[in-house]
């Protein structure tokens, strides 16, 4: 790994002062589970790392009106352990518990994951599926504006994610087909029925960036949240990722399978609740 300078501000005001004087090549360090590995491989070589680990206000989970607010530096494992999350949006518990492996989940954070916006990451599907809001030190982004492309987000240079606000839906479920080695999503689908009844189907892993499957959402609006609402519908393979892990055609097929699987989980959760 190439040498770099390191600083660890204690609050957001100090962080902003450091960012104002840092060069263009400074990077923010969250849990480091992607960034450190990338730097070890020489794929990233920032001149300065600014650690977010000392900023307490970035960590924690709270309930705010009809929403869950999760601090950017909250590790995936804390989200798995949270009774507030399990009680209100259990699909987030499931999703967080399937990221990487237990040791990676203890350090990796939700903010780090969405800032990196890996096309196969899980959190983007939850944010887009639940119509979440990303709060930064200077504004709020809706999930649909935030994820702009492969490893690209709407964040301006030096803009810091503070938290993610998930509106509590009527119900939601996540189903993913994990790569057996990395546990990243070959395809992952988050299906939600919003508080106003609107269906949302968000797909990660399949394309360059998370996207909604509008045709499936229309079917659910017309026929209800049932796997057979999608009968005869398949996703085209145009524009999907095609690599050593899976062909575009296979990913297109998996989108249909994972969407139906998420719908089956929704129905099972309803039966369990009755």
């Amino acid at each position, binding site marked *: *790994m*190439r*040498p*770099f*300078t*390191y600083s*660890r501000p204690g609050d957001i005001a100090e962080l902003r002062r450091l960012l104002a004087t840092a*060069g263009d*090549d400074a990077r923010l*360090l969250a849990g*480091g*589970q992607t960034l*450190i*590995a990338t*730097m*070890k491989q020489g794929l990233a070589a920032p*001149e*300065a*790392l600014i*650690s977010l*680990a000392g900023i307490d206000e970035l960590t924690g989970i709270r309930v705010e009106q009809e929403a869950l607010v999760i601090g950017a530096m909250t590790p995936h*494992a804390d989200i798995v352990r949270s009774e507030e999350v399990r009680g209100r949006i259990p699909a987030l518990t499931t999703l967080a518990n399937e990221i*990487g*492996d*237990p*040791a*990676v989940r*203890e*350090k990796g954070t939700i903010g780090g994951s969405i800032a990196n916006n890996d096309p196969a990451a899980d959190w983007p599907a939850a944010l887009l599926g639940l119509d979440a809001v990303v709060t930064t030190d200077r504004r709020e982004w809706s999930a649909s504006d935030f994820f702009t492309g492969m490893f690209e987000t709407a964040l301006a240079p030096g803009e810091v994610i503070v938290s993610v606000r998930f509106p509590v839906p009527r119900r939601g479920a996540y189903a993913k087909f994990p790569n057996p*080695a990395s*546990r990243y999503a070959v395809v992952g689908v988050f299906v939600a029925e919003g508080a106003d009844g609107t269906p949302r189907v968000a797909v990660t892993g399949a394309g360059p960036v998370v996207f909604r499957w509008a045709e499936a959402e229309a079917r659910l609006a017309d026929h209800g949240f049932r796997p057979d609402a999608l009968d005869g519908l398949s996703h085209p393979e145009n524009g999907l990722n095609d690599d050593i892990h899976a062909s575009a055609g296979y990913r297109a097929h998996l989108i249909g399978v994972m969407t139906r699987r998420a719908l089956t989980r929704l129905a099972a959760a309803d039966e369990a609740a009755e």
Partner: protein
Amino acid sequence: MGEVNPIEIELTVNGETRRCRVMPHRLLVEFLREDLGLTGTHVGCDTAQCGACTVLWNGRPVKACNTLAVEAAGAAITTIEGLAPSPKGIADEAAWHPMQRAFHEHHGLQCGFCTPGMIMAAIGIAERHGDALDEETVRAELEGNLCRCTGYQNIVDAVLAGARAMTPAAQRGDG
């Protein structure tokens, strides 16, 4: 680039407060093995996949090859050497951690290279699930620890037995 200098950090390693100077790009696993001489923490893949470098960070398992030493400032790190603190070292069987004893009794190893990381990960599994632990959960949560010798059967048995031995009832002797 500004001049890169070592940074002074204070942390707890195996219950002992240490004050050290480390370069920002020093990995936690390099710091433990090369600066502190705690070579029980192993480097297998060096890409955060195999889990041989797993240590406990404030009681929770993390991969020391994918973490900077400077980030551990203020943290309490436990390595395999810290599980059985005895002046006689690992030869003192009476001091073994229940999970170490379980790996010994169930022969949850062959070459032993993955074992320190396995035991740290296993302690994390036991802490997360306690009495409710079952075989399926053990197998799922050993995802981040690779063993290329055993086929895992004895490791899974050891984790289940070690987790039972770590419950409060077993620790009191009435379990």
